[in-house]
């Protein structure tokens, strides 16, 4: 599914990003066929940082997912285990999952990690801030891509 609004806006708006970068906490992205093919803000991810985000409070992924992070004692099971996800998913598919999971499943409990608008009653200390920055999203993706069935 290609969302017309997103395609149109991404093409037309990228030029305006720099003048408001300070006040704009979320990157512009474009959804193409169940994927966000381009890295957010063109950033490169770092798998080691990504692992720390997945394991820690920032991503809190382990609240809902199992992952090969043995030092953390409790892993939830609301979502599928992340073991081997690097074999099953592309970077673009993972990016869409993290940024706009409700386009994949409208009833999902997985939060949109890079969204600030369209939310209700956000606690004041978290208002206007996404759960993860563009850099952190890219870091998490880089880590997830290392989770392969062979050498993980």
């Amino acid at each position, binding site marked *: 599914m290609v*969302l*017309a*609004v*997103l395609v*149109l*806006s*991404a093409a*037309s*708006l990228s030029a*305006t990003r720099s003048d*408001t970068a300070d006040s*704009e906490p*979320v*990157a*512009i*992205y474009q959804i193409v066929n169940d994927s966000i093919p381009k890295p957010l803000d063109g950033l490169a991810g770092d798998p080691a940082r990504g692992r720390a985000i997945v394991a820690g409070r920032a991503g809190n992924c*382990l*609240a*809902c997912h199992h992952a090969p992070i043995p030092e953390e*004692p*409790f*892993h*939830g*099971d*609301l979502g599928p285990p992340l073991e081997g996800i690097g074999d099953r998913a592309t970077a673009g598919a993972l990016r869409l999952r993290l940024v*706009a999971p*409700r*386009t994949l499943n*409208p*009833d999902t*409990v997985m*939060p*949109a990690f*890079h*969204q*600030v*608008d*369209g*939310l*209700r*009653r*956000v*606690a*004041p200390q*978290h208002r206007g*801030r996404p*759960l993860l920055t563009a850099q952190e999203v890219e870091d998490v993706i880089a880590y997830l891509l290392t989770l392969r069935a062979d050498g993980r």
Partner: protein
Amino acid sequence: MAGHGRGPVRRRLRRLPWLWSAVAGMAVAWPAWVGSELPAPAPSPPRSGYEFARPETQAIQDDEFANPGLFWAERGAELWDSPDGVDGQSCSSCHGAADALAGVAPTYPKIDLASGLLINLEQRINACRTRHMGIGPYPLESDPLLSLSVYVTQQSAGQPLQVQIDGPAQPWFERGRSLYAERVGQMNVACTQCHDQRVGHLLRAERISQGQINGFPAYLLRWGTVSSVHRRFQFCNEQARAEPLPIGSDDYNALQLYVAWRGTGLAVEAPAVRR
């Protein structure tokens, strides 16, 4: 503005009126699920949080010497007989022995005829203090108020939850039902998504229950104190990074009425112990 999942673009569009109007002309229809989940029917059968608790936690609740909630019940029993009102009145001056109130707690929250508002048991106790005893209310969530609430609730241990949701309570019920289905917070989740749709799953170390309130006020091990229903609601809101509503607010009373109705027939556990 209805909530939707494409915030970044929408924000940007607002800054560019020309583009916004062009896009608006495209009549993008956001689907009906946006912002809230469909109301779920009451779970059948309703199951107490006790059934989802760890065996260690269950054991603490079951042990009449180890259950720390019983300290609150004892304090409540003392307060019940303590002269406190303008004329040295205590609760027992008017109500006699506390078991006269057996069967009362599971009917709350209830419409208060004097104010026309939906009130919960703690607010009912405070109403007696202000209206009948000539003294001020206890602060909500204070130790004496929770102690009396536990004690009054204990008089109905084992009795089924049975709230009234028709007549003047009906609009409150509807409000509670929609709050229960509304996605809130930075996590953008609704009560129903966890407590209807993901019951039995693990969220980190916690087994998700139906979110029933038949054990409240309950002793929470994590805080080492008794918690009201509203304080527990706040905690679930806080974990979703949503702004919690005030304890004693109309909205939480409406939500409590809906949640109590979901548990119709569940036996009162007083005091329950939860993690």
